[in-house]
């Protein structure tokens, strides 16, 4: 029980740090909001008189002491109010809400597909340990797991989409398309999402492969494996029923932990394929310096990752009876 409380405390502390960081970053930054509101350097700018600046500051509560501002920020957050986007002229949370499904489905799909493919290849590799299949698979996977995902994405984009014309170049679905049935719509979305998902799964696969292979090799040396083989059961049954079910624990944990990593990869890959998720939105927000939106996305993404990490802890405990 104390262990559980400690985890909760840690989660809370981490989230609190992120909120505080989010609050203090714009205030630590050189310059002030009026500089950015009045335009870029060198442009013809609208200048504010002192009186106007005072009025604006009072309106946004910037004339209050920092602690009061902080308190107000926390209250607003608790109400689910992330602020108002300057560029899109809309509520930040409304904008983010529309983008979440794209990103989350990409992250989850890539972890699931990459996880399954990596695990199966890892089992294969462990079974043929030290043989030619293992050697080839192992060295390829080590390399694949080191290459940053957005580079693989660019390669896919130029070879499969631009050169071969197999996939659309950008976007999440065909703009202004009329779909006769929901099936057509779904196919269009799958067609657009295929390359981003493939890229991210390819990178995830490397990590899963290495973990699955290691875990399987440990299990393969156990006595009950020798027994199973002596009984004359088929290879597939030994591999997947006897070995994999005992080697699955680290793989499942990895699945949840790698969601955190996948988020970083997704932000970059979305920008390669101009996929309409949170990553693309974040870059747009950075380019137009829409600070409330940047902060809102940051908060959403980190909260998602923290919750997933916490879920990994809980699931690990459920699956492994040895941990109290």
């Amino acid at each position, binding site marked *: 029980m104390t262990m559980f409380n400690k985890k909760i405390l840690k989660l809370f502390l981490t989230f609190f740090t992120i909120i505080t960081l*989010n609050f203090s970053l714009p205030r630590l930054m050189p310059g002030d909001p009026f500089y950015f509101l009045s335009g870029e350097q060198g442009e013809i700018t609208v200048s504010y008189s002192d009186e106007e600046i005072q009025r604006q500051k009072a309106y946004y509560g910037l004339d209050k002491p920092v602690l009061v501002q902080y308190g107000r920020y926390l209250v607003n957050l608790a109400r689910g109010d992330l602020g108002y986007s300057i560029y899109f002229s809309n509520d930040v949370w409304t904008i983010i809400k529309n983008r979440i499904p794209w990103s989350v489905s990409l992250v989850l799909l890539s972890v699931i597909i990459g996880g399954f493919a990596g695990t199966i290849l890892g089992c294969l590799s462990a079974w043929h340990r030290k043989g030619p299949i293992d050697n080839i698979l192992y060295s390829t996977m080590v390399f694949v797991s080191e290459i940053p995902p957005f580079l693989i994405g660019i390669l896919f984009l130029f070879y499969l989409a631009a050169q071969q014309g197999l996939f659309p170049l950008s976007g999440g679905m065909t703009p202004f398309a009329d779909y006769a049935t929901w099936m057509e719509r779904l196919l269009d979305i799958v067609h657009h999402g295929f390359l981003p998902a493939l890229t991210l799964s390819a990178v995830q696969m490397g990590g899963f492969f290495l973990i699955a292979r290691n875990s399987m090799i440990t299990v393969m040396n156990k006595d009950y494996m020798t027994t199973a083989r002596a009984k004359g059961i088929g290879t597939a049954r030994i591999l997947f029923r006897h070995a994999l079910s005992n080697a699955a624990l680290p793989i499942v944990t990895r699945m949840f932990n790698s969601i955190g990593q996948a988020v970083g990869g997704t932000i970059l890959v979305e920008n390669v394929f101009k996929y309409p998720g949170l990553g693309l939105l974040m870059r747009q927000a950075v380019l137009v310096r829409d600070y409330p939106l940047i902060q809102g996305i940051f908060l959403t*993404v980190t909260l998602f990752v923290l919750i997933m990490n916490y879920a990994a802890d809980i699931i690990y405990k459920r699956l492994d009876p040895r941990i109290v």
Partner: protein
Amino acid sequence: MIDDASHIKRIFNSGQNICPPNPCPVLYGSICTPACETSWDTPSGPALQAPNREHILGTDDLGIDLWAQICYGARNSILVGIGTALLSSLIGVFLGIVSGYFGGITDLIVTAAIDILMAIPSLPIMIVAGAFFGPSTKNIIIILSFLSWVMPARIIRSKVLALKEESYIKVAKGYGASFSYITFKHFMPQIFPICATSFIKLISRAIVSEASLSFLGLGDPTSKSWGLILNFALNFRGIYFTDYWKWWVVYPLAFIIILVLSTATLSRELERVLDIKIAGQ
């Protein structure tokens, strides 16, 4: 007790084991020499030329030689890589030793900081920090170091925790040895292999992070880093419908991949030779 020299000897004695096909030294060598007299920031020929004798990797949309840009970008990548690795190793080693040795409230604070930084996904925080503090090579190094000192600190802390209980350290302390004496005489030689391996790992990670940031357009806009070349190329209208990508995109991409893979194999080999395991994040 093992001293510094024997570790270095172990690295060099196994010289032939450090992957012979590793192109890392070759790459550094070819880039650090002033290989190209062509300018990296002014046009030196017709725009969008395919690789030819004059421009061995072709030119971009402004007619700037790509090989010159890649040479210059390498300097940037390596500067960010080594700068970040140095800064974050310094912070990480110091905090790791201090929190492991003294324990108590210092340890509590450092461990909490490590836990928090481990849990936060690093790319979003880099983007946010880059957006707020403005893109410059110095800022990128500072941000990356702030996020990556955790890796050496965590391992070194646990190593020091174990070492602290050794009898020779206790004896030295009994004779009145100071913290700095124990650190430099006893801890440092033991920690050295961990430092070396994590140093290379940090370089590799920093290079990838810098390339990602500048690909997103958050790198230093005044210096042509590899990620920025890719950013410009992908933002060029019609890049998908022409053959320009065959040199404009492929070469910078290939150079990033080669550099990342070679540092990665180097760190793997180092781990194997020095027989330590640093769990990747």
